[in-house]
């Protein structure tokens, strides 16, 4: 389980990624500067950032990897319908009473997400977070997907058959 400290750092990274911590702005790490009017409020953004971190937690990823994710999500706000959906959804996460969602313990946060996972806002944010994160060549590099290969001549001379912990296949009739 990620420590509170690490979690706060991750949130900060996400805020940074969203361009909300302008250089020189006097803000404490936990409280980012106000969002531009057209974007989300500071508060909504913090919830969004926490959501992304809970959806696809990767200890190996740093700010640069999450940058695309938050940027992709903020691009969704350009559409009025999606904007309404997202804003209402972030409020729905908190629910009526008690502590706000992002301030709850991890197990409680996850239980709440589980309750809401078929909601339209959740699926919208989940889908676009996933797309942005796992289509990022920097993330590929970390996990071993190598992307484009033509410029390097494919893998014919670069390990398409380099697995050495099993014997070579025989030739059989098959069908």
């Amino acid at each position, binding site marked *: 389980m990620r420590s509170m400290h690490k979690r706060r750092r991750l949130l900060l990274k996400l805020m940074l990624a969203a361009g909300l911590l302008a250089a020189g702005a006097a803000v404490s790490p936990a409280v980012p500067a106000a969002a531009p009017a057209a974007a989300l409020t500071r508060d909504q953004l913090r919830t969004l950032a926490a959501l992304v971190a*809970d*959806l*696809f*937690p*990767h200890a*190996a990823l740093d700010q640069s990897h999450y940058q695309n994710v938050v940027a992709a999500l903020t691009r969704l706000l350009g559409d009025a319908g999606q904007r309404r959906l997202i804003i209402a959804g972030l409020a729905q996460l908190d629910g009526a009473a008690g502590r706000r969602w992002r301030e709850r313990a991890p197990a409680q946060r*996850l239980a709440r*997400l589980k309750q809401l*996972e078929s909601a339209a806002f959740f*699926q919208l944010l*989940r889908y676009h977070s*996933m*797309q942005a*994160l*796992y*289509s990022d060549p920097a*993330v*590929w590099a*970390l*996990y*071993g*997907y*190598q*992307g*484009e*290969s*033509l410029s390097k*001549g*494919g*893998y*014919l001379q*670069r*390990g*398409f*058959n*380099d*697995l050495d*912990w*099993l*014997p*070579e*296949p*025989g*030739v*059989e*009739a*098959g*069908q």
Partner: protein
Amino acid sequence: MKRFALDDDSVVVIVGSGAGGASVARTLCRRGIDVVMLEAGPRLSPAQFHQDENAAFQQLTWLDRRRASGNWAAARFAPQLPLLTVKAVGGSTLHWNGLSYRLQEHEFRPLSHYGRVAGASLIDWPLSAAELAPYYDRAEKQMGVSGRHGLPLTATNNNYKVLYNGARRVGYRRISNAGIAINAGPRDGRPGCLQMGFCNQGCKISAKWSTLVASIPEAEATGKLELRDQCMALQLEHNDRDRVTGVIYADRHGRRQRQRARLVCVAGNAVETPRLLFNSASSRHPHGLGNDSGELGRNYMRHTMALGFASFDKPVNMHRGITTPGAVFDEAGHDGGRGFAGGYLIQAASLGLPTLAGLLQPGGWGADYAAFLARYKYLAGALMNGEEMPRRENRVSLLDAHKDQYGLPIPNVHVDEHPMSESMRGHFHRRVQAIYQAVGASEYRAGTTVAAAHNMGTCRMSARPEQGVVDSYGCSHRIGNLFVSDGSQFPSSGAENPTLTIVALAMRQADHIAAKMIRREL
């Protein structure tokens, strides 16, 4: 390039340039018959293909609006994009992996062989394996299918090595990398495979057979083919003697044109083909052209599919090389004891990270899911391709209230899976998990295919006209000069990937058409 006049009614008009359409065209042209081919999508050059899953998807996929309903995964996870087909010259052969297997002898007689299956609309094919065999031979030679007719095998990659060894250890014996329409070495003016790993994205070097790089240029070389790309067929016209007389289409500038025709072959893939026939309804054909039986659009089948991924301690790098490099055939037969009719193939299959993230667990998220994706380098993958039961209510229909950019009602694709599909998936997952565990897998995950890649049955061939739409040559039971030339003709799906059979049927159809034309019967 050859040009035919719009009012030239001596030409054969073919709708669609994919596996079915281009194969009919190639054979007809080589028999000296003039052909106009209408293709809704653009003609791309292989150099334009993208080695990027998202960009290739945007470039190639048929994105015109469609809807899905029923209990299948597409209705839940991709209700606006239930099919994965291509809109470009070459059709879905740009996407395809090249797996080219013949249907088994008994798969032409599913009703006789499996017996009546409750909740399924099985019929036997009006055609035997022996009748199709010579066309399978021709198709394999033409497409350059590896390991057949003396052609060399493609090299096997890491992902295949894992499946092969695991399958051997659990006792399977029919495991092979033969039967792939990918060049092992230079052949037919196309180079050998460089193991680039982007077979689904078009193959930039054309080592993989597609109609774009093979059949269509071969047909054009005869001087008998005019291919009009970015031309969407909207409606077939007919006269009061039940003969098709021409095709109304929207050209690349959106202008409506009428191409007169001696005969029409429709090969728009199994959703667009019945859709075009529905859109050609008239007072003589109120339920769609040639739909006297009421079977048009019905009996829609995919293959029953599933994905299995396993994580190992040592690297696999499944993405390197041919996307589907070979398969296990031991479960391909019919065995009533397994709880489902028909069989399935276990095909080694890789996905790039972006696609894997979407299909590992559609709708998935959380620490567990993310941790498995982070194992990418250590994953091996397999795909099930199994027989799916036809059902009358699984069907393509039109949503009259929703129109596409041409003003035509959009199609809805309804699938309520037969319970046997889920039994088959369960069987596959147990077997594939055992295969991977036999070579040391530490974790196994069931993945889900969402959009349908194989589409069949919506204009099925039948011995009795009341049970289908076309005869064994793909000729409409009612309209003598209207042919269906794609997978819509299949009465059953079999366990094998469909394209080799589509091509073989198309060549047989073209021979039949040419012979009738010579006898002046068409």
